[in-house]
């Protein structure tokens, strides 16, 4: 066999191994039920339950923000975010959370909001996680 062929094949093999290992980090969008069952960290998409309490008292604890979220199955649960309440939170159309379920409460580490803006069709995104 030619050296270059061996080389190419091994490259492809490395690439496949790498991609498979990378894709292990890929996550799925869970619901409250799934999150409760697995107990692991998950991504969860839902909408803010506007009729329920939104609690944030920065003068007491700046890093405690709780609200209620309705997931895709229509189940509403309490969410606690370990960060301040983002601007325009109440206007959000969709909330993407990362976190896990514990005792019927979803503990979120980070949150991405999708907000309708002043435009009809345009949407702006607000990120409430911190980076690097």
């Amino acid at each position, binding site marked *: 066999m030619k050296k270059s062929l061996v080389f190419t094949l091994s490259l492809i093999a490395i690439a496949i191994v*790498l*991609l498979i290992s990378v894709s292990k980090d890929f996550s799925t*969008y869970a619901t409250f039920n799934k999150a409760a069952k697995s107990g692991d960290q998950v991504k969860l998409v839902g909408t803010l339950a506007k009729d329920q309490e939104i609690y944030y008292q920065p*003068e007491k604890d*700046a890093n405690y923000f709780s609200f209620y979220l309705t997931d895709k199955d229509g189940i509403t649960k309490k969410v606690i975010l370990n960060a301040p*309440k983002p*601007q*325009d939170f109440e206007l959000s159309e969709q909330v993407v959370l990362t976190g896990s379920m514990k005792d019927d409460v979803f503990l979120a580490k980070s949150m991405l909001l*999708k907000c309708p803006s002043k435009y009809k069709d345009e*949407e702006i995104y607000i990120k409430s996680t911190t980076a690097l």
Partner: protein
Amino acid sequence: MKSIQYVGEHLWIHYTGHFLVCLAFISALFALTAFILNRKQFSDSWKKVLHWLFLIHLTSIFSIIGLIFFMMSQHYYEYNYVWAHVSDELPTKYILSAFWEGQEGSFLLWMFWNCVLGLFFFRFRSRFDHSILSIILAVNLILSSMLLGIYVGESRIGSSPFALLRHMMDIPLFNNAEYTQLIKGNGLNPLLQNYWMIIHPPTLFLGFASTIIPFAYALSGIMEKDFSNWLKPVLPWALFSGFILGTGILMGGAWAYEALSFGGYWAWDPVENMSLVPWIVLIAGIHTNLVAKSTGFSVGATMSLYFLSFILVVYSSFLTRSGILGDSSAHAFTQMGLEWQLVFFCVVVSSIPLAYFISRYKLIPQKEQEEQFHSREFWMFIGSLVLLFSALLISFTTSIPVYNKILDQFGKLFNYSMESWHRSPPLEPIKHHNQYQLWIGVLVALLSSISVYLRYLGERTLKLGKSFLVSVSISLLISIGLSWISYYSFEKLHWSHLLLLGSAWFAICSSALYLIRSIRFNPLQSALVCSHGGFGILLLGILFTGINKRIISTNEFAQRDLLENWSEDDISKHLTLIKDQKMFMNGYWVNYSSDTFINKSRIYELDFWKEDSLNNKTEHFKLYPEVQYDNKLTKVAAANPSTKHYLNRDVFSLIAQIPQTQTDVEAAKKAEDSLKYELYFCKLKDTIYTKNHFIILDSILTDFAAKDFEFKSGDQKLQFKLKVKNLEDKEAKTASPGILFRQNLVYKFPYQLDAYRVRIQIPDTIYDLVNPKWENIPFEHLLIKKGQKVELGQGKFLKLNTISRDIDPEIYVPKEDEIAVAAEIEFTNGSQTVLLKPIYLIRGNQIISLPVSAISPGITLRFSKINPQTEEMGFDYFVHSDLSKLQLPILVAENAVRNDFIVIQVIEFPWINLVWFGSILMLSGLLLASYTKIKNKRDAS
């Protein structure tokens, strides 16, 4: 529907603009057709045609841009693009930012740079120029189709920047023929009103656009079956492109760090990733290009990498512009209905080179012998492969939304919902990418150091023999030593970090040694040293900053039980600061001392200091983070950080939250409405007992100052100085609510004692208390001459200063048939003096005397008579009882929400300057190399 004749529109722009877009499109189309039909024999006359078509195209693009700037600067809001991005308040310098805020503008920016790049080729000085120019025009053809805004059947092609607002929306406003008078622009997102937004996009877009040149050279080469002659001229372009694209990305990082709320310079956000990936591939291409030029190896690899780099630019513009990144990115553009056009763009740009590459693969020159293990080219090739892997991994993860979309399209065919197959991006993108890119970093640093010592073609390396071994061992030894030192000076390093540390130091040492050992100054060698050494320094910076980033705004003692099993990364990153209550946090004392409102921003002053064991302040500095309100000043729109830069570290601060009452007007109103005010009455020096407090009315003042309020002469002010105390405190706190009467208006200045959650105001009923209804006033009469002073008893005096027919228009504007005379009267009770300006008005044969009042010293007065003979003026007056003798009303609410706090985030970034220094060094290496190549070429010819 009847058509309306609209007034005030500037339709000539609409028509001219559309014409120019079509002209740009058609000229590019003709150029491309001419090129394709006559490709094999591109005669001089066809070159002339191409030359002129390019000039027409360039002129139309430049004119389109000029027109858009014109309509933006003239605020022609009947145009959708102007309405969406500009407002009356927008400062002129931000019109640039507004121009490329929208997709249409950024497409134009891209085309603009393509045209500028085309100017280097349109004189056809060398053999590839006409095909490069044609390829540039082909790309501009696709780009300009995005601006056409024409309908073909049901579907729209492109989105025109010259579309009228009334064509975009169907709202009743457009039933009004004069609607242009009524509309106002939306304005630029406050986040983007920033000087970075002026310089970052053009640089980045020049970077994106310039990757077309290596692409076009490679494509021309393969089209003309010439696989060697383009390798040399392409190099300065590729180097320049690497420099400018790298600069654009770096600026993005600096913007994020300096002016946005990310709290870092890189977040592995999809949009960031997709600008980095083409750059990485381009750098890999530059390396194989060097190999190919010097040895003849890697020609095919160079081509593929240059192709891929531009394909990735197009792919990245698809990702950021199609709205597909919606769930995963914080700053993608929004959907505009151009998705299929963008997909088409991607398909064209990738399929043509691919087709050529496959069909002509056999023609690509292959060297008979294999690269030798100890040759430079072998390791450079491996290095390029590692870079390619890096790009592959990043794009693989970033493309997750694309896989979901493809699954959906596939599912549609079978009418089956693929949603359960959807994948979401990694939960922790930063960790995810770092864990792979760390190894890439190690490999690239090692390879870049080794290849510095090696020579092209293995034999030459062998000739170096001993000196090679000496150099490598010296730099190995030094870098092991330095790694050891740095490993122990930072706490949190993992063993894998030690490897990165070692290879980064090795890269730095090797480059330095290479520079020292080279006998004469050689610009190309220095460029290599700059780039490779810079890369090493950048790695060090990333490592030191990333791993040792320290959250300062955290209070270890205030963690809740809930978070017991959360990792260190999850600790609370924010802290509440109360005004003037200094707080200790992670090594620093912090005090929030004041805030000021300047031009849409509220700027906070934060004092930072450290204390030594003797409580002496050391290292005192101030930071000024701010929050920015939206264009209508009703809501907080953005938080701008403030950073203290030291040589070896930065202290970064950001306002994460301010009291609700300050974030938006509605919340403030709601908060005020929810207060439960109780009414109390109190005489001077008396004490009132509220639910939880004692309040003493200590003094009454008739003058006060207020922040951000403009007082006028004639304003009647009243302020209470109150002493407030709760049951526990020994010392009383002062509160000073105020009230102001101006003509018929009342302004209240409530006072909030945040420590007690008490809010106090003076009710407007106080006016009635001190001013009895004037019909019932038992007036006394007085005749007085100008300049005369009369005693009214009890030490109170009235003095008539002047009589005049010049009346302050603020007080009264006489009508045509009226004669008005104003008096200026000084009233004093010994300690206080007020000026009153009563008016005597003759309307026909009617005389009107308007009463005027002062609160303190209290008097009501009217100008009732003029006796021209004796020059005596008649006044009716009534002296009020002293305020100090009255039971005065006070409103007290004891459930106020604190509004003297802020929530901050403070992070220390050690050695972040290494990141900037390393990147700048690396990029300047690229620039130097590019410049030297161009210069050498010029010198040769």
